[in-house]
Structures are given as C-alpha cells and as structure tokens.
C-alpha cells in the first residue's frame, strides 16, 4: 500500500462519494465498454465538477482551482480513472487554461477562464499538421498581419473533437524568416469563422473523433493572440509539459485490467474452464499488476521536490513510454477476455447499414484498436526515447 497522508485519504473518500452520486450509471457503462463520451456528456460532467469546485483542480485558487498539491491532484485523477469517470475537459482545463493563466493578458483571462471552467465554450487543439507531426516546430499554417486581424492559411490534422468544438487554439507561423521555433504564435480561433472547413477522419476503430481543419484566408482579431507574437513555441512546450499528472495512465490501466479479469470469469477456453482460470492469463495479469505498482511509485517519486527539472522532463518521457507499453499490454488482455464478442465491428446509425446489423454488444475490439494510438500521440514513443536518452547521457558520470 502506498504510504499516504490522512489528508490524501480523506480526499479520496470525498471524491469516491461524489462519483458514486454524480456519475450517471449509463455513462459509466458506456465508458467501460470503451466508448468515447459525447459532447453533452463532457459538458454535463464538467459543470458537475465545477459546481463542486473541482472543475479545474490544477488551476490557481483565484481562477477556480483547488489549491491541492501534486499528490492530491493525482489522487483525484486516479479516483476518476478507476471508476471510470471522465477527467475535467482536457483541452479547456488541462491544456489551454494553464497557458492563459501563465501567459495571457488579464483581459483575456477574465474573458476566457470562467467559460472554460463551465464548459460554456469547448476548445480543441490545433497543433499537428500533415507535414509536422513529431517535428511540430516545422509547422506551416501561417498568420499574416492585416490591420487589426491576422489572416490565417493552412491546415491542421488529428484535431480531436473539432467537429463539435466551438473554438480552436492554434500554433501558427507569424514569422516565416525566423528560425522555426522563433516564428510561431499561439492564436485562439472561432471555428465558426468564415474560411474554416472541417473534414472528418475515420480511425481504424471505425469511429469519428479525429478531423482535419482547413483555414482559407480566415480573419482572426489580433486580440485573440495569446502572449507575445513569435513566443508561441514556449507556450506550446509549457502546455505539452503540463500533461504530467496522468501521463503514465496507471489508474486507467488498472481499471482496464480489473475489467479484463471480470470478463475473463465468463470467457470459455478450449479444453475447458475459463480464461480466468488459465495459468497463462493469470501470469500475465500478475506481471502487469506488479509493473503498474512500480510505475505508480515512479510517478510519485518524480513529483517530489528532490526531482530536478531535467529529471522531471526525462521522467515524463519514461512515464509515457512505460505507461503506454503497460496500457497496450493490458488492452491486449482485455481483448482476449472479450473473446469473440470483441470482434464486432462498430456500426454507427448514420452509416447506411441494414437494421439487422446494429450491434448492441460489447465492442471492446473496437476500443482496443484505438489503444494502438497511445504510443503515437502525445509525442511518439520513439521521440520520447530520444529525449530520455539525451538525459541519461547528460547525467551519467
């Protein structure tokens, strides 16, 4: 048992109590089955959290935060993940909010933070481009000054939820002549602006969550610039470094593993008995559980004051690489436990399939497919290992 203070234990109890009364059972079931929450789910949940004062736990108290320590922040996210319940809205709360708090003008903070907290506006993230994935700083979407507007031309890709979001925060090139990291700005853009078009991307799980967003001479008021022009890369690095808290995904993996064990009790195997009784399955479950336990302590050690800044950066890479490996191993076990019911394709009502084809059964195979993205998004694991290797070589005597 990880040693925790009485305060953290009490917080966990409060969060559990909140979740047991506030989380809709239907939403929980859908999340367990591996479905994505809908826009309405996210807005409703964000508002429930905000009413409780937990809408943005990591923000400063004066902007709606809780004042919790890193450990308490993590405890809160873990309690949510293990149910599972959704976290606070990732784009509004975890990504954009902290950037505005740190780098935006007071006017912008006052205008945006309450709306983000209450999910009155939903943002999505416009970073990656077809030619700029791992090498994000090579991005080419341009923003040219024209009086009191920027004119934006270009294209973003892998924009999760752009099809139902209201605004997008974008990295754009404002100085094409500067060194690539020094010519980028951070711009807030209304998705209703003329010149924006959104193309759905269907993922290998058959679902629509990703999009391409095209900008064709889109006029954006200059007061939507966050911070200073051409300092956007600093803000992006700050944003990307902020996802630390749940990057290892320990609680998420634990929840999926426990669901796999539950399903395995009902999964027959050739030769008799169930998967839950199978030695091979049991060995793999035990192995993953031990590694998750250790990874959990790794992330806690990285939160202590004695961790140097460079160790924290490298540590985040390690947590991502190891965390995603364990998550993907867990999802493979879950798929096995789903047996043949995990095979079914997902049939959306709006894809002209005959009525007989609609499947209401578990589509865990579909959800499994999306887990393959974990080692790709958020900085592909190969890039993370480069960062990590640099740290090891720099710090090894």
């Amino acid at each position, binding site marked *: 048992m990880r040693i925790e203070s009485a305060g953290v234990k009490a917080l966990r109890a409060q969060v559990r109590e909140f979740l047991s009364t506030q989380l809709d059972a239907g939403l929980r079931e859908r999340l367990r089955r591996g479905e994505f929450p809908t826009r309405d789910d996210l807005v409703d949940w964000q508002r429930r959290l905000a009413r409780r004062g937990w809408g943005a736990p990591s923000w400063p108290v004066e902007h709606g935060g809780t004042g919790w320590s890193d450990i308490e922040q993590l405890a809160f996210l873990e309690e949510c993940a293990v149910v599972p319940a959704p976290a606070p809205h990732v784009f509004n709360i975890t990504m954009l909010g902290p950037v505005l708090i740190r780098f935006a003008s007071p006017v912008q903070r006052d205008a945006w933070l309450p709306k983000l907290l209450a999910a009155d506006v939903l943002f999505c993230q416009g970073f990656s481009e077809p030619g700029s994935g791992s*090498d994000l700083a090579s991005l080419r979407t341009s923003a040219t000054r024209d009086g009191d507007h920027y004119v934006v031309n270009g294209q973003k890709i892998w924009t999760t939820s752009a099809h139902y979001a209201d605004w997008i925060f974008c990295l754009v090139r404002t100085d094409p002549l500067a060194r690539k990291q020094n010519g980028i700005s951070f711009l807030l853009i209304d998705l209703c602006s003329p010149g924006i078009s959104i193309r759905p991307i269907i993922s290998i799980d058959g679902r629509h969550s990703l999009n391409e967003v095209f900008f064709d001479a889109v006029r954006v008021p200059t007061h939507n610039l966050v911070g200073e022009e051409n300092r956007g890369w600093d803000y992006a690095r700050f944003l990307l470094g902020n996802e630390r808290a749940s990057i290892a995904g320990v609680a998420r993996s634990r929840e999926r593993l426990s669901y796999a064990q539950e399903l395995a009790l009902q999964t027959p195997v050739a030769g008799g008995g169930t998967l839950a009784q199978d030695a091979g399955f049991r060995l793999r479950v035990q192995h993953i559980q031990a590694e998750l336990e250790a990874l959990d302590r790794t992330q806690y050690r990285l939160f202590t004051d004695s961790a140097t800044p460079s160790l924290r950066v490298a540590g985040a890479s390690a947590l991502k690489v190891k965390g995603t490996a364990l998550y993907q191993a867990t999802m493979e076990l879950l798929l096995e436990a789903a047996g043949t019911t995990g095979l079914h*394709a997902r049939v959306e009502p709006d894809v002209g399939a005959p009525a007989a084809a609609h499947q209401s059964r578990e589509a865990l195979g579909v959800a499994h497919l999306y887990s393959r993205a974990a080692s*790709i998004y958020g900085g592909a694991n190969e890039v993370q290992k480069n960062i990590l290797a640099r740290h090891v070589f720099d710090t090894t005597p």
Partner: protein
Amino acid sequence: MTALLPDESDAIAQALRRMLAEQYAFSLGRRACLAVQPALMAPIWDRLVELGLCGLMLDAEHGGVDGDVSDMQRVQHELGRALVVSPWLQTLLCAQLIRIAGSADQQDRWLPGLAQDGQSMAWVDLAASGGSCAAAPDDGMWSLNGYHATVPHACVAGHLVVTVETGSESACFVLETAQAGVSCSPVRLMDGCWAAEVCLRDARAYRLGSRDARHLIGRVRALAVAGLCAEACGMAESALEMSVQHLRVRHQFGQPLAEYQALRHRVADMWIALEQSRSACVLAQEAVMDENAAARSRLCAQAQLVAYESVTWLLQQAIQLHGGMGMTDEVAVGHYYRRMLVINALTGGAPGALRALVREQYSGAAAY
C-alpha cells in the same frame, strides 16, 4: 501431393494477384465489396470462381485441379496481401470434409457445385470453438440442436458443415441453410466479414459417412491452420513493404524516417518476424502431411503460436511506423491488424496455441 506443376502453381498465384490488383484495390473495388448486404455475395467471389480457384484441392473427377496444401497456401497468401474478405477458405475446408468423410454419393452430390458453380459453404466447428450441439438420428437423416455465436460467411452459404464431438465419437453433418431449423443472424466483424450467429433447432442434416470422424476432422483443422498462417504471412509481407515505403517517403526534422537507426532496427526485427511466419507456414504444411495425429497436432499449435504472435506484433509495429496515418481508416495497415485480431479471436490466437501445447505436452490431450 499436388498434381500441379510449379509453373502452373506460379501461374495461378500470378493471375490471382493481377486480378486482385485490378478488381480489388484497397480504396475502390474492396470498399465496394465491403458495402454489399450480408446475405449477398460480393463481386470478388465471382472473380475467384472464374479463375477456377474453387476446385483447387478437389480431384479432377469432381471438377477440381488436384492441388495440395502448398497450392492452397499460395492462394491464401495473395488473398491476405489484398485483404480479401470472402468465403474461399471456409468453402475449401468444407469441401475437404466432404471429400474425406463423405460417401462416394455424398461427394458426387456436393463437390461439383463447390468446384465449379460458385456455391459456398461455412464450417461450424462446434467442439473447437466452444459452441454446443446435440445430434440425434431422425428418419434416415439426423436432427441437430445447437448454437454458435460467430460463423464467418454463414449468411451467404447454401450449406453448413457442422462438426460435432461427443466423448466417444466425432461426426460431420451437412445441412441446408434454407430450412426452418436453421437461423442465421448477421453479425459484422471488424475485418468487414459478415458472420452469423447460428441457431440450429431440430435442423435436418445428412451425416457424412458413418464412421468416427475424429482424425479426419483433425486433418482438416490442420488445413485451416495452414491456410490462416498463409493469409497472416501475406498480410505481414505487404504491411512490411508499406512500412518501408512510408519510412523512405516521410521526412521529419529534415531527414527521411528511414535514416533513423531505431526505425531501421525495428524494420529488421519485423523482417525476422516475417521470416518466422513464413517458416510457420512450412510447419503447418508438415502438419497437414503428417499421418501421426499427435505430431500433426503439435506442429499445428506451434505454427499457430509462431505465426500469429509474430504477425500480430509486426502489424502493431506497422501501425506505429506510420504514425498518425496508421490510425486512420484510409491506410491499409490498420485493416491488416483488424483482420489479424479477428483471426486471433476466432482461433484462440497465440495464447490459445500455447495453452494447447502445454495441455498436450503435459497431459497427452491432443491439441487439434
């Protein structure tokens, strides 16, 4: 032993590859075929029939060309590369069950239609797949009661071949799908295949032959493993090609991904996995040709373990190497992976094979 000369076998594979390139391209022909309703045959089936592939392992007397397991694997390899969704393998396996377990009359009744008329059948292997069945004699025929959750291509099949094992005896039955006692509810699998949930209620069936069919069924199961290993190998080969091509073309940080040593090593590891899966196909061939049931069973399980584990891993890497694009529906690597997941789930995959090997090695129970 095959009656086909090496040239003839090559010609078949090449003609198939050409036809698939023209008629079943990933973004066009294939998508059109996948949009067909569950109870209808996709156009690709007619193309396979036209090429004479349906009689591949049947004898000339019944309209076939007397090919053997290695010929079948060559076809499966091409079908795997092109991600073909069709009842070809299912039908071939049913034809083999009829050929080796059925009487001369039964073979004459059903085999020509399968070899030449484009009829298809689906194999409901109840004992192997955890489904349940009871069979009772009924007025010259048999009456079957049973259930199977996922039978690929059952909705388009004119007949089902149901294999049943009791403690003492095994038997194969042929049933017409168009009868009151057989219901097939369509279920779409994530590889695009229309499978069915099959319910048999006093379904009227013909028993193939009259002797215990245990070893005969074992031989056809080995054929199934050989066929699926070959399909998986074809998918892996094509996915590796696509990954290499992508790495050459995709540039980040001012250089092609193909120049990063970590990725070069990954490709090297994928090549090793591909070669292991090719060798697993050879193990499966040896299994099919082995007269000894225990040896056959062991080789099958080893082939399945090595092929499915290697190919599943390779396809995961293929997705990873394609970055965000590997996660889209528009790129083939994700579709290869989906097909592999279906194969794994329907057969028990590598973990199932490992379990079978342990059971057999340490308690003498046959794996297949």
